[in-house]
C-alpha cells in the first residue's frame, strides 16, 4: 500500500476537521491550518508523482467497499497532472484567501469548507471506481453549494446556491443512470474476473472487448449519459445556467471551484473514461465534440454583453471548458492526443483563470464589492501591480501569441481543422467553425473587460479611491502569472507526450492556422476602438433584438425557471397536493360516516324499556306482515 496516494485527499480531510474545531476558538488559525494541510497534499501529490513515474505503470490499489463495489486509488499520468494542478492551485488560493477573508466572522467555517472541497476534488481525481468517483463528485457539489451560499444572509447567494445544486443534480442523476447501464450490462460479463463492473481501470483497459460484448450503441448510450453528468458539472450547453449565478459566492470560491478545479471535473471524467467513448458508437464522441464546441461559441456570445466583472469571467470559463471538451471529442481523428490537448488547456486555463479571479477579488475588495465594469475605469493607475497581473491573465485568456493560452488553445483549433479535413462533411466542419469564432469572441470580451476596468478615467467614486492590495497577499499570484505567461512555451510538447505517446502538433495549411490569429487581431482592434476610448457610451443597443436576446441569455433562464419550474413542476405539485387533500378528506369522511352510523346505533340503545318495547312490537308486526305477504305471493 503506497500511503502517499491516499494521503493526497486525507490531508485536506484532516484539515477540514482541524480548521473547523480549532478555528472556532482561534479564528486566525483556521486559514493557516487549512493552507498547511492543502500544502501537505501538494507534497503528497509530488511524492506520488515521483513514485508512479519510477513505477512505470499506473498505481492501482483497491479494497472492498460494499457488495461488488470497491474503493481504491488509481493513479496514472492524467491523474498525476490533475492532482498536481489541483493541489497547487488550491494551495495558492488558500494563501490568498487568508487575505481575502480576514475579518469575516465565519472564516473558520469557510476554510473548513474549502479544505473539504479540496479533499473531495483530490479524492475524485484519484478514485478507482465510478461509484467512489460519484461520491466525491457529489461531495464537491455539496461544498460548491455551501460555499456559494457562504454569505447565507444574501438572498441572491442562497438562491444561486440552490440553483447550482439542482442543475448539477440533474446532470449527476444522468451520470447515475449511465452507471446503472454499465453495471447491468457488465455484471454478468465473463471477462470480469473479480473486478467491480464499475472499476475505472477495468473499464478503460478492456473497453474494446466491453464494446463488443454489450454492443457499441449501448455503450454509446452509457457514454452519453456520463457526458450528461459531465455537462452538469462542467456547465456545458443545456446545463450551463448555474455558473454565472454562482458568482454570488466569495471570489476565492469562484476562483477555486468555479474556474480552476470543480468545473473541470466533468472534462476530467470524459478524459478518464475516454476509452469508453472511443470504442462506443461514433455518436458518443461526436456529441462530446459538438457540445463542447457549441458551448465555446455560445458562452462567448453571452460574455460580450454582461457588465458584471465576475460574470464575464464566468462566461469565459464556460467557453474555455467547451474548448477542453471539444478537444477530447476530436479523438476519432487525432486519437489520444485529444486528451493531451484538452488536459493541457485545462491546466493552463486553471492557472490563468485562477489568476484572473484572484486579481478580480483584489479589485472587488478595494471597490467595496462593486462589480459593474461600467463604473470602474482607470484602475491601472490606482493599483498597478494587481492590474498588471490582471493583464497577464487577460492576454493568456485571449490567447495572444507568446502566452500559454495561445499554445494550448490554438492547438485545439488546428486539431479541429484536421478533424474536418479527415471527414470533409458539414457536421465535421462545425467544431472548427464554432471554436475559431469562439476565439474571436474571447478576445472581444476579454479586452472589453480589461479596457473598461483598467484604462480611461475612474467612472465612480469608489473607483477613484481604489487602493492596491498589500503586496504580500499578491505574492502567490506571481506563480500563477508565471505559468500563464511561460507555461505553454516551456511545457507544451513534453506535456503532450506525457499523457499520450507520440503526439505531434497538428500540421495544417498556414492560411487556416492564421485565421485564429487574424480573429485575435480583429477582436483586439474592435475592443480597442470601442472600449479603449469612451465611444461605447454613445452606443444605444437597448432596442436591438440581438442585444436583448443576449441580455436575456437566449431566454434559457426563463425557460428553466419561469416555464419548467413555475409553469410545469409547481402546478403539477399543486395538483398532486390537491388530489392528496381531497383523497385524505374523502378517507376522513368515510371514517366519520362510519362513526355517525355507530352513533345512530348507540342512540337506539338508550336504556328506556318503553322504547325497546315499541321497537319490539313494530319489528314483530313487520315480520308477520312480510310472512303473510310472501304467502299471498307464493
Amino acid at each position, binding site marked *: 500500500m503506497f500511503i502517499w496516494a491516499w494521503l493526497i485527499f486525507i490531508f485536506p480531510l484532516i484539515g477540514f476537521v482541524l480548521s473547523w474545531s480549532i478555528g472556532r476558538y482561534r479564528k486566525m488559525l483556521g486559514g493557516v491550518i487549512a493552507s498547511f494541510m492543502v500544502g501537505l497534499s501538494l507534497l503528497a501529490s509530488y511524492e506520488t508523482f515521483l513514485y508512479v513515474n519510477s513505477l512505470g505503470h499506473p498505481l492501482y490499489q483497491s479494497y472492498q467497499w*460494499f457488495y461488488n463495489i470497491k474503493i481504491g486509488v488509481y493513479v496514472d499520468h492524467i491523474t498525476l497532472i490533475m492532482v498536481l494542478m489541483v493541489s497547487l492551485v488550491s494551495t495558492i488560493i488558500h494563501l490568498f484567501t487568508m487575505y481575502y477573508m480576514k475579518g469575516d466572522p465565519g472564516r473558520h467555517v469557510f476554510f473548513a469548507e474549502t479544505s473539504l472541497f479540496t479533499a473531495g476534488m483530490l479524492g475524485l481525481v484519484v478514485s478507482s471506481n465510478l461509484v467512489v468517483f460519484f461520491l466525491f463528485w457529489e461531495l464537491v457539489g455539496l461544498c460548491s453549494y455551501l460555499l456559494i451560499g457562504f454569505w447565507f444572509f444574501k438572498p441572491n447567494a442562497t438562491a444561486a446556491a440552490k440553483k447550482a445544486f*439542482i442543475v448539477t443534480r440533474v446532470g449527476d442523476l444522468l451520470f447515475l443512470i449511465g452507471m446503472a447501464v454499465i453495471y447491468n450490462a457488465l455484471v454478468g460479463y465473463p471477462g470480469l474476473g473479480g473486478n467491480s463492473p464499475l472499476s475505472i481501470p477495468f473499464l478503460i483497459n478492456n473497453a474494446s472487448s466491453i464494446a463488443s460484448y454489450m454492443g457499441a450503441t449501448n455503450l454509446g448510450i452509457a457514454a452519453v449519459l456520463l457526458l450528461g453528468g459531465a455537462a452538469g458539472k462542467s456547465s456545458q450547453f443545456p446545463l450551463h445556467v448555474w455558473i454565472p449565478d454562482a458568482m454570488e459566492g466569495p471570489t476565492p470560491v469562484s476562483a477555486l471551484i468555479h474556474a480552476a478545479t470543480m468545473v473541470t471535473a466533468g472534462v476530467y471524467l470524459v478524459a478518464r473514461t475516454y476509452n469508453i467513448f472511443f470504442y462506443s458508437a461514433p455518436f458518443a464522441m461526436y456529441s462530446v465534440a459538438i457540445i463542447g464546441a457549441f458551448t465555446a461559441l455560445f458562452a462567448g456570445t453571452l460574455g460580450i454583453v454582461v457588465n458584471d466583472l465576475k460574470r464575464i469571467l464566468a462566461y469565459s470559463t464556460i467557453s474555455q471548458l467547451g474548448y477542453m471538451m471539444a478537444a477530447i471529442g476530436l479523438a476519432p481523428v487525432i486519437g489520444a492526443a485529444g486528451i493531451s490537448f484538452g488536459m493541457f488547456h485545462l491546466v493552463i486555463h486553471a492557472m490563468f483563470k485562477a489568476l484572473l479571479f484572484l486579481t478580480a477579488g483584489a479589485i472587488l475588495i478595494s471597490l467595496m464589492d462593486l462589480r459593474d465594469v461600467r463604473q470602474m475605469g482607470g484602475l491601472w493607475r490606482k493599483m498597478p501591480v494587481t492590474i498588471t497581473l490582471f493583464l497577464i491573465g487577460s492576454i493568456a485568456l485571449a490567447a495572444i501569441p507568446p502566452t500559454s493560452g495561445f499554445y494550448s488553445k490554438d492547438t485545439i483549433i488546428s486539431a479541429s481543422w484536421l478533424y474536418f479535413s479527415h471527414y470533409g462533411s458539414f457536421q465535421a466542419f462545425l467544431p472548427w467553425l464554432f471554436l475559431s469564432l469562439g476565439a474571436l469572441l474571447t478576445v472581444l470580451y476579454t479586452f472589453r473587460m480589461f479596457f473598461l476596468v483598467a484604462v480611461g478615467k475612474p467612472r465612480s467614486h469608489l473607483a477613484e479611491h481604489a487602493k492596491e492590495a498589500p503586496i504580500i497577499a499578491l505574492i502567490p499570484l506571481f506563480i500563477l502569472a508565471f505559468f500563464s505567461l511561460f507555461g505553454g512555451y516551456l511545457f507544451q510538447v513534453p506535456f503532450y507526450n506525457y499523457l499520450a505517446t507520440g503526439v505531434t502538433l497538428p500540421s495544417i495549411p498556414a492560411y487556416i492556422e492564421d485565421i485564429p490569429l487574424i480573429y485575435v487581431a480583429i477582436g483586439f482592434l474592435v475592443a480597442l476602438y470601442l472600449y479603449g476610448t469612451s465611444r461605447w457610451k454613445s452606443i444605444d443597443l437597448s432596442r436591438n433584438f440581438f442585444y436583448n436576446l443576449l441580455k436575456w441569455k437566449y431566454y434559457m433562464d426563463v425557460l428553466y425557471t419561469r416555464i419548467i419550474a413555475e409553469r410545469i413542476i409547481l402546478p403539477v405539485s399543486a395538483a398532486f*397536493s390537491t388530489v392528496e387533500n381531497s383523497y385524505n378528506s374523502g378517507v376522513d369522511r368515510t371514517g366519520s360516516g362510519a362513526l355517525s352510523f355507530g352513533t345512530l346505533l348507540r342512540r337506539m340503545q338508550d336504556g328506556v324499556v318503553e322504547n325497546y318495547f315499541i321497537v319490539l312490537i313494530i319489528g314483530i308486526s313487520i315480520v308477520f306482515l312480510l310472512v303473510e305477504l310472501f304467502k299471498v305471493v307464493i
Partner: protein
Amino acid sequence: MLMVITFFLSMILAFASFFMGKKARLFSIASAWLMAILVGIYIYMTFGGGYHGGIVSQYNFQIAPSIGISFTTGVTGFTGALIALSAVIILVSLMVVEKDSENSIYGLILSTEVGLFGLLISRNFLFFYIFWEVVLIPMYFLIIRFGGAKRDRVGLKFFVYTHIGSVFILLAFFTLYNYYYLSTGEFTLDMGTLMNTAFITGHIPVFWRDFMLFGFLIGFLVKLPSFPVHSWLPDTYQTAPYPGTIILAGGLSLMGGYGLFGILLPASGIFSSTLLYFLAFLGILSLVYFSFVAMFQKDIKRMMAFASAAAMGFVTISFAVGILEHSYTQVLELSGGMFQIIAHGFIMALIFASLYYIRRNTGSEMTYGLGGIYREAPLLSSFMLAGLFASLGLPGLAGFIGEFSIVVGVYQGITWWIFFIILGMIVTASYHVWVAQRALYGPYNEHLGHIRDINRKEFATLCGLLVLIFVLGVFPNLLDGLLTAYVGGLI
C-alpha cells in the same frame, strides 16, 4: 439467549417506568441506554464473527404446542440490524421529549420498544401479531395524549386505519394455519414452516392464496406506507409529538419493511409477475407522487412526512423488482432496499430531532415562519442541513448506498421507467434544498427575536446520529455485509 433476556428486560423496564413518578425521565433514558448497549453487545457477539445467512439464536418456549402456539425466537442479519435501529430511535425519541411532559410518556415510548423487539425476534405468527399490535397501542396514546391540534380525531384515524391493515395480516396467517392443518393434520404457526413456497403453491387453492397475499400486502403497505393506503400518514406525523414522529418514521416504516423483506421474501416464489409489476408500479407512483406532494407543503414536519413516504417508495420498488428478475443484480437491489429502510430510520430521526429543537427554540416549524436561522443557531441549522442532505441521498451519508443500489439494481427490470425514479429524485432534491434556502439561510426573520442554539447534551444527541449516518455511508459494508448474506441465503 442474550436477545431474549434483553427483550424480557425491556418489558420489565417499560412496565416499571410507569411507576417511577418524577424519576421516569432519568429511568427511561437509562433503560433505553441499557437496551441499546445490550443490543450492541448481542449484535457484536452474534454477527461480529461473520454471518452467512439464515436464522441464528433460535429458541423455543412451548406454550400450547398442540395448537401450534409457542414462543419461538430467531434473528437474521436483517432483523438484527432492525433491532439495532429500533434501539437507537427509541433512545433518540426519549431525548426529544419535552421536559414538562407528563411522566407516562416515557413508559409509552419504552412500550413501543417492547413491541418492536418482540415482533422482530418472534418466529411465531401469533406472537408476531401480538407484538405488532403492542406497538400500535402506546402510539395511539402518545398521539391522543401528547399530540398537537385535532389529536383525538387523528389518533383515532391512525389507530383504526393501521388496525384494519393488521386485521388483514391476522386473516392471512389464519388462512395459512388452516390449510397447513388440512394438508398435514398438524397445527403450527411457525413462520419458517408456513412461509414456504412449496407448501403455499402446492396446498392452497388459488383464491385463498391470493387472499392471503392480499392480506399480508395490505397490512405491510399500510405500515410502510405506500400509495394508496397512506392516508393516516401526513396527519399522524404532523399531529404526533416529536418523539412519536420519530418512532413513526423509524419504527412503523421498519415494521412494513420487515414485513416485506423478512416475512414475504423467504416465500418469494408465490408472487406472480403481474402482481410484482403492479407493486413496482405502486412503488414508482409512491415515489413520484409523494415527492410532488411534499414539494407543496409549507409545514416542514408535514413535508418530511411525505419525504419519508417517498423514500419508502424505493423500498417497494426494490422488493418488487428484486423478486421479479432473476439476474446478477438481485442481491444488490434487495440488500439496497433493506439498507434504505435502516438508513431512512436514522435519517428521519436526525431530521425530526433537529426540527424539534428548531420548533422548541423558535416556536415555528413552517418554512416561511423561519428564515435565516443559521445566523442565530448555526450548529442546529447545520444538523438540520445535514439531515436534509442525507435525506436527499447525498453520497457519503447513509441514504446514498440504498438509493444507489436500488437505482443501479432495478435498471434491468424496469428499463426506461427509471426516468420516473430520477424525476422523483430531482424533485426530492429540489424541495430539500428549497427548505434549506428558505428556512435556514436567507435574511434572518427578525420576528423570531433572539433564539438560542442547542446545548451540549442536544449537540451530543444529534452528533451521535449524524456520526452513525456518516459511518453507514462511508463504511456501508458494516451493514451491507449482513444484508447481502441474508439475501444470499434466501435466493
